[in-house]
């Protein structure tokens, strides 16, 4: 098995889950209503838990301990797509990102249940339940607010247009696409993207929101190779603040 290709895939997935999990957790205590605050925070915690499982897998392949990997790297060593690191903004943006990202995440893990790398296929099966709720939550909100009032539709539409180029960055091709596909580790970003487009189109068509012609948009690539927006480094610093005070502390 091509371990370099596998690790590249695992790193970008783990970093996606960690960074989106941390970002979403910034809503804790500030959600639009108590029930949503709890639901969104709980999902954020799921995502951090999923990143931990992936870092653990990398550790078993010879990489450092999960905490070391999560808390001691700088922004340019992260492989998350830039969509996950953008500031929360208002709730409409967070919901749109949640919808766009989680739909892709769900399909990625669905495809990975068939992975030739058994531990990854196993993990993908295990977390399908969690992710099913995450997309159920996202779809319910988008369907509600996407056809509610003029303000809610306008806000979501604006956020959708802002987020889409970054969302296309999720599918930035890996240098190892061919190897991953050939070895049956992963079906590849192009397959994922096509499925993602049809699924978001299906949900959005049930709302008053308009999906722009995606072929006219320039995807925001770079995240997968460590070229991030200015928003990631402050996030990483805040996330690792406590760890860095005493890296040897037992939790």
């Amino acid at each position, binding site marked *: 098995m091509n371990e370099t290709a596998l690790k590249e895939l695992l790193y970008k997935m783990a970093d996606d889950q960690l960074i989106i999990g941390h970002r979403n957790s910034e809503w804790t205590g500030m959600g639009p209503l108590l029930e949503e605050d709890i639901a969104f925070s709980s999902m954020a915690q799921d995502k951090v838990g999923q990143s931990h499982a992936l870092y653990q897998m990398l550790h078993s392949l010879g990489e450092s301990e999960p905490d070391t990997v999560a808390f001691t790297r700088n922004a340019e060593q992260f492989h998350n797509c830039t969509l996950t690191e953008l500031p929360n903004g208002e709730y409409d943006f967070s919901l749109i990102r949640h919808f766009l990202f989680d739909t892709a995440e769900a399909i990625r893990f669905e495809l990975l249940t068939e992975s030739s790398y058994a531990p990854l296929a196993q993990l993908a099966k295990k977390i399908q339940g969690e992710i099913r709720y995450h997309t159920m939550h996202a779809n319910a909100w988008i369907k*509600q607010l996407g056809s509610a009032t003029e303000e809610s539709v306008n806000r979501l539409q604006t956020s959708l247009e802002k987020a889409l180029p970054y969302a296309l960055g999720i599918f930035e091709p890996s240098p190892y696409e061919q190897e991953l596909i050939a070895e049956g580790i992963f079906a590849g970003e192009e397959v994922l993207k096509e499925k993602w487009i049809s699924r978001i189109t299906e949900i959005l068509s049930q709302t008053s929101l308009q999906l722009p012609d995606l072929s006219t948009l320039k995807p925001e690539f770079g995240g997968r190779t460590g070229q991030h927006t200015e928003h990631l480094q402050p996030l990483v610093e805040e996330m690792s603040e406590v760890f860095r005070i005493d890296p040897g502390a037992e939790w």
Partner: protein
Amino acid sequence: MESLDPRVNRLDLKGFQGNLTRKAPLDQFGTFEVFIQMKEGKPYQHEGIVHAPNEEMAFIFAKEQFSRRSTCSGLFVVETRNVFVTDFTEGEDTIYNYISDEFPKEGDKEEYEFFHLMKRGKQHQHVGSVEARTPQEALALAKPAFINEKPVFNAWVVKTSDILFTSEEDKHIWDTLPEKKFRDASDYKASDKIKAFKERNAG
């Protein structure tokens, strides 16, 4: 952003007016009752309430509100105003002593679910369902089976069609990663650590 602190907002008050205006309703959603089944085969029991704009969102909220830590195999929600409740009894007195055998006999039969409170301070548990024309009739029909049993202190009746159940395929949302101790405060053994820290510093 404008401050949400009333002490700050009141600084802008300019004079007072004597004319009357309508009392504004609270800016919040209605409530939905949430019932949880911890394990396949166990009865559903009432877990609490969520605020939500409709039953679909109530379900979404209820799932994380009431089943994010414990095991769960099913959940259902019903709008609070669709739950019909009796008075409370106490001691050895069952509420069925007060359920009339007389009930109006108009309308079509529909299915109703009924719930019992067997211990004050505990949750209502789902007991069964019965075909009836009204909630009152549903309880009257249940009465013969329960009047001479352990006292029921309070009963709830809900029309089955008013309930949003979990679909079979959605039951997967409770298949989650088992390694989730990080969700429980107890796993961090904070008090042990604080105690050890204090002892170290005292010594």
